[in-house]
């Protein structure tokens, strides 16, 4: 006679990041006892809140604040080892430590890795990415008062790193290729306000600036950053935050269809119906997401599918929630206005309030909020549901409290699936 667990489908999750953790906890809640789940993570630490790394760097949070907790009953965690191969015929994964684990269903939650710019000197000492707990542990001792530091990349991660380093006393310069900060999430007006705000805290910016090389001293440690225009910026510490790339090597080797990420359908299934992909490594309808809210949505949707409540994941609103020492910032959806987009703007120089909304065909397609992001989830919902905004338009920029009528009702299932929980919506 088989033990009860022998009758359970075996689920192996490749990765132990935030998407993997959310998947496991959701599945065990929805279908307790029906699956035997193994979560395999490369990092040695238990799943943690990657979003909190900037707070850790800034000294605003402690390590234990970042722990995500128990991934759920019946979930086995295998940490500190990397999956090296997938055997789709035998339905097994092989780990770097030699282990081989069988699965009935496989979930890829491999995440992404930093992209290093094609410049010389990236290998020098004192040059770090800003991605993992290990990165933060490496940065912390180096960021002492007065340390000249350069952050390459003025996106969300780069700014978080710059802020954290500045709080630690470093003299920080951010070098950014685009003409305004966070150009993927913010319009130029908001980017300019953000730069003003950060400048007021002593962070310097080189915008529209291209890095040519990182120079190291005789000991092999970074000492300055050379820009293409010839400017040299002293830098004992260099953080590279120029973007990430989905981890698809494993899937490619297994013969799964990949684009930029592992291609999945609306049930988060890859080209192998027994293999799923969620989070930053997946590519859904041609889009790869780098934010936590879509990862959570995919994780939950995938878990529901496995639990017998097939999800109908149709994509996420890309939203960014940044809170840097009092600056509330949020962006969602489309950022750059196209010819058919209609732009609504609300600004107040009295308190630095800024909002810019994009409307296309009577639908809200983009929102940038600065100074007060309290309406972020409302906008996220409008963008996601693609509700007509005609009736709301007169007060759309002023927020939900100005709109007399209740927002358009959605059925419960869609609300669960569709509305991101904004407090957790941050970059992974």
């Amino acid at each position: 006679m088989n033990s009860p667990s022998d009758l359970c489908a075996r689920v192996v999750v490749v990765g132990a990041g935030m998407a993997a953790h959310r998947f496991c906890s959701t599945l065990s809640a929805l279908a307790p006892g029906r699956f035997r789940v193994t979560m395999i993570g490369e990092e040695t630490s238990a799943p943690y809140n990657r979003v909190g790394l900037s707070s850790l760097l800034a000294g605003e949070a402690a390590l234990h604040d970042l722990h995500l907790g128990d991934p759920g009953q019946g979930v086995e965690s295998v940490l500190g080892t990397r999956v090296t191969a997938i055997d789709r015929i035998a339905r097994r994964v092989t780990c770097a430590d030699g282990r081989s684990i069988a699965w009935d269903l496989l979930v890829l939650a491999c995440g992404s890795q930093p992209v290093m710019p094609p410049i010389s000197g990236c290998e020098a000492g004192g040059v770090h990415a800003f991605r993992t707990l290990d990165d933060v542990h490496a940065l912390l001792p180096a960021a002492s008062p007065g340390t000249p530091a350069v952050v390459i990349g003025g996106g969300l991660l780069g700014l978080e790193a710059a802020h954290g380093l500045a709080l630690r006393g470093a003299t920080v310069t951010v070098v950014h290729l685009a003409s305004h900060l966070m150009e993927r999430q913010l319009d130029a007006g908001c980017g300019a306000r953000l730069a003003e705000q950060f400048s007021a805290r002593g962070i310097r910016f080189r915008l529209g600036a291209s890095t040519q090389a990182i120079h190291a001293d005789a000991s092999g440690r970074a000492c300055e950053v050379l820009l293409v225009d010839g400017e040299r910026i002293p830098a004992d510490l260099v953080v590279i935050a120029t973007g990430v790339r989905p981890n698809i090597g494993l899937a490619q080797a297994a013969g799964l269809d990949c684009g930029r990420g592992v291609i999945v359908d609306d049930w988060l299934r890859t080209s192998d119906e027994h293999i799923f992909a969620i989070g930053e490594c997946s590519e859904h309808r041609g889009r790869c997401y780098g934010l936590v809210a879509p990862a959570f949505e995919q994780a939950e949707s995938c878990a529901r599918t496995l639990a017998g409540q097939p999800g109908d994941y149709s994509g996420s609103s890309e939203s960014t929630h940044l809170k840097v020492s009092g600056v509330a910032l949020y962006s969602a959806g489309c950022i750059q206005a196209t010819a058919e987009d209609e732009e609504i703007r609300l600004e107040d120089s009295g308190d630095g309030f800024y909002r810019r909304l994009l409307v296309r065909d009577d639908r809200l397609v983009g929102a940038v909020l600065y100074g007060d992001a309290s309406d972020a989830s409302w906008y996220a919902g409008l963008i996601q549901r693609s509700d007509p905004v005609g009736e709301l338009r007169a007060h759309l920029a002023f927020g939900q409290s100005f709109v007399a009528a209740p927002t358009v009702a959605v059925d419960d299932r869609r609300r669960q699936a569709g509305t991101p929980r904004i407090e957790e919506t941050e970059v992974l």
Partner: protein
Amino acid sequence: MHGDDAHPANRGRLCSKGAALAETLGHATRLLVPEIDGQPVDWETALAYVANGFMRAIAEHGPESVAFYVSGQLLTEDYYAANKLMKGYIGAANIDTNSRLCMSSSVAGHVRAFGADVVPGCYEDLELADLVVMTGSNAAWCHPVLWQRIIAARRARPDMRIVVIDPRATATTEDADLHLALHPGSDVLLFNGLFVHLMRSGRLDSTFLAAHVEGRDDALAAALADAPDPSAVALGTGLSRNDVEAFYALFAHTERTVTCYSQGVNQSSAGTDKVNAIINCHLATGRIGRPGMGPFSLTGQPNAMGGREVGGLATQLAAHLRLDEPAHRALAQAFWASPRMVDRPGLKAVELFDAMADGHIKAIWIMGTNPVVSLPAADRVRAALARCPLVVVSDCVRVNDTLAHAHVRLPALAWLEKDGTVTNSERRISRQRPLLTAPGLARADWWIIAQVGHRMGWVQDFDWRGPADVFREHARLSAFRNEGSLARAFNLGGLADLTDDAYQGLAPVQWPVPPGSQQGTARLFGHGGFPRSGGRARIVAVSHRQPHQTTTAEWPFILNTGRVRDHWHTLTRTALSPRLSRHRAEPALDLHPEDIAGLGLREGGIAQVESRWGVTMARVVADPGQRRGCAFMPMHWTETLSSRGRVNAAVNPHSDPISGQPEFKYTPVRITPAPFIWQGILLCAPTVTGRPDCAFHVRVNGGSHTRYIMAGTDWPRSLTERVDGRVLGMTLPSGLREAHYTDPARGHARRLFMDADEHPVALLALWPDGAIIDTDWWSSTFDPAHPINAAMRRALLAGVPPDGATTAGALICACHGVCAGAVTRAIEAGCASVEALGRSTGAGTGCGSCRPELRRLLDSSQHRALLQGTMGSTTATAAVDCLAVPG
């Protein structure tokens, strides 16, 4: 501000304008020192300049090359001084008055019928009458205190009937037992038909006719030719035969009938004939000068009557003396010992400015009136003033449309500073006592006129120590040789020897006050005694004729003009009151809803109204009370306060051939949508200066701020640029911070400017023409005196309260400052009658002119309730009073 409870005319009740007088007393807009070419000068310099200018013109071009244009705002003493200087000393009659624009058809009609300009009855008659006929009068708005007396009388005697004859449905017609919405200009036909009906129904008073009246047969023949039967009247007036017959029957069998008439009758190219058509019916039935009956002209200005008494019209001499009677001229010359007596009539108002436009008038002195706004074809008036070599204006304000053309500005007294007498519609002379000390160098008009007279060489003749001296002289002239063939109805002999103290304490009294008496006379002509040869009144043969200018395919609409409830004349005073500016903040074009649709207009949009004479613009308001093909615009707005609201630019200058009164009530026009792409408002602190740089704007006193209501043809560039000290042509103080909201695809732009202490300085909001934007909350909230936090800034940009609170709504009761929101809440709390609303909110308990609007709100809410079925059949619910509802 309280009325005088003892005064017989109003028993202490004030209209909304009187009640708001305290809000208009500031000196900010006052003219405080004399000016020549804009430079302040002392009185001596100014007076000498005026006297020399007039003397030079007279010397070079004769006495008819100079003119005075005066007003019903002058006191009788001022008027007397001006008239005396012109007619007895300059020796011409080019003195006319804005009374020409409101009362001259009544004057002419009275003179034709009675031999003198006499209102036979008194206000008490309106309370004693069993039938009050109001024709061409929106008394509920324009004579609200009197109207409420009438309404109170009907409440006390429910059998009393009120018939209102007016092409428009108005607040007055709402109280009518019968409203005859006749075709504009068809009054003569209606009253000729009445005359015929009275004859046929045996109602003519043959005894009275035989003893006191002449001309009956000719007049009856003319009436019969016009109106052989009620069907003909119905056809010509556009009324139903039933309504015509009902009115005729009511009039015929009601002995105690008063027929009131006002501007709807007077302001017509047939105004004098209309007046006589009405008087004819009263003379023919002997219903005149007896309690509760008579024709009753309701006058339009504070002291139009006083002006008429002193002869302040180009067609009169003085004190009811006739200019065309050599014996009367000799009498006046003897009394004044005048060096050069006028011998022929002068130019009436419209003619006067026409002559000026043609270069014949070399010097004009305008006193207390604003002809660039108030005369018809007003662009021509403006051009005339621009051409006149010497323009002197006496006024209490420093800026108005007319003062813009003045070479000399003379600071006169304002209403509460004046000292003298006025006369009302029932011939009652009242003392006007000064409550306030004159500010700056402002002086009484009679003093200014006398001082100019001195400098023109007539020191003894204008040597008055005070207004009592002037009044006594005026009273003596009225009694001078007032007997036999020179007898006049107007006689103040009993007041000719008043001491200064007696003058000071003079109680209101109705003239005539013959020598030896101090008692007035309530009614005249009840037993004949008309001041015509033989003592007989004349029934004047009149025939219906079309207005001088009629509609055509090119000019298909009839433009009517008149007053709104809380404003007065050309807004120089009432626009100073935020409260009075709330009921109607801007000029509106009232049109029937189907005409709005037919013309391609939109309610809330701006319409252009164009005539042969000029162009004006106003906001379109749907009014089912308008006849199809008719439009109404208020007369009040000026170019000082609005870019295009000066309606008289478009109004027809054609005048009654006898009275010279212009046909304000009937101008053929065409109406088109104005080509504006945006509308907007700009709310400003006093530190913001300038005039909006857009095609259409109206300035409104918002109390704490100045508000501009605007529209334009081009999207202003300054909306999208950062503030550089100017926005939409207005200059802002420096160092401001800004918040803004833009939705360019929908045409919305709002900019809020704050100073360093977060006081709002300016709020600009623009929206596309056609959008429905409620601006009430902005207007009631924007207050530069108080700093605002971020939430309030956001709310101001959003245009709605931050907490979802309701806005106050439009002002309903100006006397007590009650807005529509409070009234609606009281109705919802159970108030089911106008009286209950009054006890609950105070609304309607002042002058009463908002009572029709209160009833409309009640009716519409009860109608809604019935539709919703919440009131069912329990009409008792509707009658529940609500004493307990807090105000």
